[in-house]
């Protein structure tokens, strides 16, 4: 579906150099600390900014050559893009209808009703959660094939987030794909099929989510245990007061061979933290 090859972009001292692939039918998570380049990559994918070199292609088409009509296949939530606050949902419907011939007005209004969004009220009066929900509903309202969602759940409580994630799960079909960023790792764990992590403009980690949840682990090793500790499957290590905190991609090995070492499952947060802070 989507192929990003060696795109490079320079902003002052920040250099982006990144490649990633999303097959059809895949929900891909995209994580990284603030300022790592997530939004730059997403904007490059959408053709909103142009990298100095490298390629972005969607279904084999170069993004730079895609017409406005072809770009209707994108469903987008970007953190700094919103509708004018004086519009009502009914006003937005008119705009959407003009912009997207595939706009599913009936379904969209049905969902607004389901989530108690007042279609006749100016959206500036909506709560943060209602606005975020509206943005996601709009992104999935016109049969987009590729959803590019930058922090669609930011600042929302667990109930609204859960509803948004369920909407996205329902939207998925084999011909559709989603690229999503979130600072809430737990959301990605239950939603995504795989995960990219970006740091300082470079992809530093990629794994399928089931491998990550089923095989990755965190070992807590004391100084004494450390001397005889087999480091073969250790990816990153971080010094702690008790000894060493390690990220492994084979927790079973350490569970089996080091009965006295504490081994836990690794969450996406653990991985992010150790990839960032560990050596």
């Amino acid at each position: 579906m989507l192929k990003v090859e060696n795109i490079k972009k320079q902003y002052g001292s920040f250099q982006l150099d990144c490649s990633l692939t999303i097959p059809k039918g895949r929900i891909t998570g995209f994580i990284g600390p603030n300022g790592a380049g997530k939004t730059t990559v997403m904007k490059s994918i959408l053709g909103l900014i142009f990298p100095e070199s490298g390629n972005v292609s969607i279904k084999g088409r170069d993004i730079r050559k895609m017409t406005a009509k072809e770009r209707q296949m994108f469903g987008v939530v970007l953190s700094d893009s919103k509708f004018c606050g004086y519009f009502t949902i009914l006003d937005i419907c008119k705009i959407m209808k003009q912009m997207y011939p595939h706009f599913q007005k009936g379904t969209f209004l049905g969902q607004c009703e389901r989530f108690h969004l007042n279609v006749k009220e100016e959206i500036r009066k909506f709560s943060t959660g209602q606005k975020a929900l509206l943005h996601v509903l709009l992104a999935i309202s016109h049969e987009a094939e590729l959803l590019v969602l930058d922090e669609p759940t930011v600042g929302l409580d667990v109930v609204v987030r859960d509803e948004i994630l369920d909407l996205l799960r329902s939207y998925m079909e084999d011909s559709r794909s989603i690229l999503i960023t979130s600072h809430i790792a737990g959301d990605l764990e239950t939603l995504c099929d795989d995960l990219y992590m970006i740091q300082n403009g470079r992809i530093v980690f990629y794994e399928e989510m089931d491998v990550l949840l089923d095989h990755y682990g965190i070992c807590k090793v004391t100084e004494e245990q450390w001397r005889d500790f087999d480091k073969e499957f250790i990816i990153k290590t971080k010094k702690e007061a008790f000894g060493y905190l390690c990220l492994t991609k084979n927790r079973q090995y350490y569970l089996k061979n080091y009965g006295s070492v504490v081994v836990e499952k690794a969450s996406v947060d653990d991985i992010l933290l150790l990839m960032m802070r560990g050596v």
Partner: protein
Amino acid sequence: MKIIINNSSFQPIYEQIVIQIKDMIMKGELCENALLPSVRALAKEIKVSALTVKKAYDALEAQGFIVTVHGKGSFVTSANQELMLEEQRKEVERLLEQAVRKAKSCGMNRQELSDLYQLVLEDLTEC
């Protein structure tokens, strides 16, 4: 489908799915030729990645419990009863083996072990 994922268990998620579907087949909750939910649908239901469900279905198919017809879905196969019995027999064998090993490691001899086995057997058949 009534599948419960234990997120704090060390057992891989796909294995948890495999075991529970097998269980349903064994108990007759899933009959011969029953259609399983699509990979996407089950993934949504139990909130795990579609690749995890795919892996579980692939494992079930490799073991002969289901068959996937392209474009139609995954179905429970017919020859399950025997497969199940065989599987359970293997499990019993494994557990017995474990017991024998344990007995050996704490120095029990053949006779003691055999006596103990008889005792347990009688105890359990009584109730």
